[in-house]
């Protein structure tokens, strides 16, 4: 009875006119979507071609053929074989009948390399720790929804931006200048870059949280720190652990290259090998780094999945 009364008091707007209105609106909306798509694709294509042109992708170069004659060629087919030349030079001679001796020859500096590998991993570990501390602390004032005021937000966001925009290698150059050659410069370089990168990732996780628990803490008389500690941190903790493990993988890669400028780790051996033209050493180092990264990737992926609750059943 009462429900009927309500229905007759507010009859739903329907009938042929409502359907016609929908058809019209729908056609307009679809036309607009098509125009947007066409304009977007044209802009993308133009940007892509302009970039390729600036990047010399359309250059034509002169190459010397085997018989000594010279010919004009498009740069990509002209340059690709040289990549092969370089890679082939790094291949070690491995014969089945003397495999042990050949391997020993290939990895002849294994004692030095093993020590440097450990150093590399330790640099990555300590740098990740510093990055996590810095990134964690700064990520809260750098989140739009949590920052106490816009000045703090601005300062924290820009500090993190600068820290991650400058590559590890450049930070390493600066720190080698300040603190001399050695792993400490590497730790600081990788750590500073990781602070910036992690701070950004953490703050994005922070910006997606539910604000209701923070309001609850605030209404009970909690300070800004209480709201973060009790309302925000429990919500973002799984994300933080997951990003941290991912960053550790990235930092192992970064630490293995910064030795190139004297900041410790395997990178210094890469430089030596290149300048002495010990090409097979390069491939040996590549194998070492590759295996290490694969092992750490695998381990941290397992851990990460456990943290975010994937594959617990499997």
């Amino acid at each position, binding site marked *: 009875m009462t429900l009927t009364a309500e229905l007759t008091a507010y009859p739903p707007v329907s009938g042929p006119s409502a359907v016609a209105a929908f058809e019209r609106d729908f056609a307009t909306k679809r036309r607009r979507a098509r125009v947007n798509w066409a304009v977007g694709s044209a802009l993308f294509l133009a940007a892509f071609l302009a970039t390729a042109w600036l990047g010399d992708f359309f250059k034509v170069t002169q190459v010397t053929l085997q018989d000594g004659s010279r010919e004009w060629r498009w740069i990509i087919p002209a340059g690709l074989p040289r990549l092969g030349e370089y890679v082939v030079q790094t291949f070690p001679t491995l014969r089945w009948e003397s495999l042990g001796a050949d391997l020993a020859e290939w990895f002849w500096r294994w004692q030095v390399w093993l020590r440097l590998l450990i150093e590399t991993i330790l640099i990555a570990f300590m740098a990740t720790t510093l990055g996590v501390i810095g990134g964690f602390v700064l990520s809260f004032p750098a989140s739009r929804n949590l920052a106490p005021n816009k000045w703090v937000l601005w300062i924290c966001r820009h500090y993190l931006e600068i820290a991650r925009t400058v590559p590890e290698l450049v930070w390493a150059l600066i720190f080698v200048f300040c603190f001399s050659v050695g792993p400490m410069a590497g730790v600081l370089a990788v750590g500073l870059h990781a602070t910036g990168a992690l701070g950004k990732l953490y703050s994005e996780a922070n910006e997606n949280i539910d604000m209701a628990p923070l309001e609850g803490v605030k209404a*009970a008389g909690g*300070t800004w*720190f209480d709201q973060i500690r*009790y309302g925000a941190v429990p919500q973002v903790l799984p994300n933080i652990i997951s990003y941290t493990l991912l960053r550790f993988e990235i930092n192992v890669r970064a630490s293995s290259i910064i030795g190139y400028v004297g900041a410790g780790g395997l990178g210094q051996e890469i430089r030596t090998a290149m300048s002495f033209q010990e090409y097979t050493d390069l491939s040996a180092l590549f194998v070492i780094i590759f295996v290490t990264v694969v092992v750490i990737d695998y381990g941290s992926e397992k851990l990460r999945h456990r943290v975010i609750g994937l594959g617990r059943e499997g």
Partner: protein
Amino acid sequence: MERHALSLTGLTRRFGENTAVDAVTLTIDPGQFVGVIGRSGAGKSTLLRLINRLIDPSAGEIVFGDRTVNDLRGKALRDWRRHCAMIFQQFNLVDRLDVLTNVLVGRLAHHGFATSMAMQFSDEERTMAIEALDRLDMAPKALQRAGTLSGGQQQRVAIARALVQNPRIMLADEPIASLDPGNATKVMDALRRINREDGLTVLTNLHTLDTARSYCDRVIAMRDGRVMFDGPASGLTDRVVRDIYGSAGLEEFSESVTSTSIQPQAETISA
């Protein structure tokens, strides 16, 4: 506990062009159970948030006893929020923390930076929390994650959190709007018991008239940010109700359609 009246004078809050709470003047005596009704957007929720100072007023005064509340800052403001506990429609618990820690959040106003960050609470505080939970029959769930509880249980945990604040006023913003009728009754009964046993002033927003009628000593009705009615629930005649909800177009205003109580509704729908 000191018992003071809460008085609002010309309390106003504007959001841009829109005035959510428009020159509200009220006095709420200690120990009253007051319901605030009105349709969505009438300013009920803003009013409660103004009192707890989750929102700053644009104009007007909030006075509790002889203390002016509307311009408190820093520590004094947090202390006021502690005195004037609040529970919410969405409970606002931390899902990933256990029930006990959620209740202990109500003690944070008494803590310094270090103990708060380390989540270190004293044995007395834990006892308080368990006793509060026990009053609401939630003590057995103390070590469960808050997120695993049902809505009604979460709201009772939120009330326990409010109780350990040792508040003088309890504000409740639509405490039963997302609960089923059974749980809604439990939560309202708990609020009434606290009101009677502790003499705690309760000010609650409600979206159903029958709840207001059966629980509140006094009903305040709001429309477009203004107080339209203020008196005992018995004063809510059909004419007043139609005025508040702006349902003049309806031939017959049906309370049972908006009601959450169990009995009458099943019949109306099948008819």
